[in-house]
């Protein structure tokens, strides 16, 4: 076991896979010599050199096009899009090309690539550098979508993503980069499409993703200590494929579902979960489903405003105390 930060786990996962398979290559802006603007890829350039770790111009469409073209001809590229907001600049490649090539060509094209990107708010970067857009990717058929909440999950899930034969969008939450956690030693490969139950409780099931997971855990502790409410916390980890069985099982046990989503309200990932729950285990619901989300506004920049806008542990506690009886 080693204690790693979330950002160190990124570099370790990529290094692990690049050592293992010489077809794994990595490209993006400032990822090589500079080790990444978030310092999440430090050391890779030194170990693997400029042929395998390539710094690109500011050309998001070219970055993803290069990833797609190389993936369909035998390489296993990892492409970094620096801020997930910038996916909007190259969304054609993501949604129209990469996601659809295999299907449209009757199964001829292969697309074993990973797009990793720094997602989410909490860093005071303002509305265009703080969005949580994993829900955009969830909506496009043909993309696998992962958003880990801890260093161990980063390492294991990124390794799994790199080994996956399909295109994987890997959303790293930038506010979590400095967070430390224990990561098992040695080769680590997790499984996409699996959720994890982090905490058990009988009164309410909280389903959260990425940066919202630590907040949900903090809220669960306070709910138990101060309010006698015992919460189960489920970390979704993968939006596609979605581990619906775990979610349905855990919500059935308590009869109450609360989602905690960093996305703005409309069509956040939790809306789909709420829909599946209301469809498939309606008769096990003991009360209305509650979604705790960022309001449907661009994220304000000032720290006081940003903190008050994103779902906080305090707000999770407050909503649950008010609405879960």
């Amino acid at each position, binding site marked *: 076991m080693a204690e790693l930060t979330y950002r160190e786990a990124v570099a370790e996962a990529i290094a692990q896979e690049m050592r293992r398979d010489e077809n794994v290559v990595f490209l993006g802006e400032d990822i090589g010599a500079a080790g990444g603007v978030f310092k999440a890829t430090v050391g890779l350039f030194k170990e693997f050199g400029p042929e395998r770790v390539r710094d690109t111009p500011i050309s998001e469409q*070219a970055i993803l*096009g290069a990833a797609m073209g190389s993936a369909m001809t035998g390489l296993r590229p990892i492409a970094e899009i620096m801020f997930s907001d910038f996916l909007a600049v190259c969304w054609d490649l993501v949604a129209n090309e990469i996601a659809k090539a295999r299907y449209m060509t009757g199964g001829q094209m292969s697309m074993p690539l990973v797009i990793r990107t720094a997602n989410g708010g909490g860093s005071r970067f303002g509305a265009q550098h703080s969005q949580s857009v994993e829900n955009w990717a969830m909506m496009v058929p043909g993309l696998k979508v992962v958003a880990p909440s801890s260093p161990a999950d980063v390492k294991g899930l990124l390794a799994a993503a790199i080994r996956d034969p399909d295109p994987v969008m890997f959303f790293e939450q930038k506010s979590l980069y400095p967070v430390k956690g224990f990561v098992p030693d040695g080769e680590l490969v997790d499984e996409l499409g699996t959720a994890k139950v982090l905490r058990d409780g009988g009164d309410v099931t909280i389903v959260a993703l990425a940066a919202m997971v630590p907040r949900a855990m903090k809220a669960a502790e306070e709910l138990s200590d101060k309010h006698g409410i015992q919460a189960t916390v489920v970390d979704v980890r993968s939006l596609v494929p979605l581990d619906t069985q775990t979610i349905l099982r855990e919500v059935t046990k308590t009869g109450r579902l609360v989602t905690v989503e960093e996305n703005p309200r409309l069509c956040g990932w939790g809306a789909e979960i709420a829909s599946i729950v209301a469809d498939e285990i309606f008769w096990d619901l003991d009360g209305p489903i509650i979604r705790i989300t960022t309001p449907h506004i661009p994220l304000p920049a000032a720290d006081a405003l940003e903190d008050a806008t994103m779902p906080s542990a305090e707000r999770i506690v407050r909503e649950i105390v008010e609405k879960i009886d």
Partner: protein
Amino acid sequence: MATKPRAAAKGKTPAKARAKAAPKRAAKAGTALANDDIGEDTRLAIWRSLLEIRHVEQRAYDLFLQNLIKGTSHLALGHEAVAAGFATAMQKDDWSFCTYRGHHHTLARGASMEGVLGELMGRECGLLQGKGGSMHLTSVEHGAMGSYAIIGAHLPIAMGAAWTAQYKKTGQVSVCFFGDGTTNIGAFHEALNMAAVWKLPVVFVCENNLYMEYTPIHDVTAVHNPAGDRAASYGLPKIVIDGNDADEVYRTAQTAFAKARAGDGPSLIECLTYRHSGHSRADPGDYRPPGELEAWLKKDPVPRYRERLAEFGISKDVIDGMDAEVLAQVDEATEISKASPPPGLELIDVDVWADGGTAWRN
């Protein structure tokens, strides 16, 4: 001169291999053939390719009028020389990328006619099993790595394939075909720049047919030669050629491929050509000035090459014989496609993922 019999309908031996396998003909002193760098066999391969494209596209036109081809089709009538010239110069393991106006490039790489016609008619025998349609013709086994419907998207993708060749040091080349309108979209700039910086083995070929959909290209482009005049922005030489002369296309392709394989980076080639029909089946082409079409029809690459072959001493029998042969093959392919049933409904729910499935949940 007897030609080698055409191989079985599905797939064909590429031009170079056929040229190599054919018995060398002793050059008659004094004839044009004697001093030629291209040679008869390659020319006949080019001729066959031109005929295949011309006849298939004409057939597609007819089938559309018979309402057997649904949706829309972007025909390449008039563009044959660009496809035939480049494809003949390519190696079997080179990769090509083209746009939604890509039937000619896909055929030229060796995809079967019934695969192409079948896909246009939405049949089971289609190259894509009916899943993609006219705008996405792909045959990975022939190195035809897709036809792309979003303008400019495939330029960086083609550049990515070149990266594989560079990384693995295979000597493969990636060839990317696009229209004049593409030179104005952002992805063009990004792909050219990065290909030049990384010195990737990719050849960008602009089929400048003077019209961006319904608009004259000059009305919307800041420079006269939409590709040629931008090459300097990427440190590349300006190359503008007669896209309707298959020999010129072939020679230019060879030069570009040699440069790429030697590790000297990308090329940007503008081929001047013209399309005989409208932008798509829905377009009768009324925006073209009177007389323009007629003038270009005089430069029609197919009759022009017929004359070229005659100039080089190839007999009319051979030339016409190949024409008749290809037409018969197109007829056969048409019948095969017509007889092929629509794709089974079970195909709807396959091939999103590598495991063949479409599941997003457990």
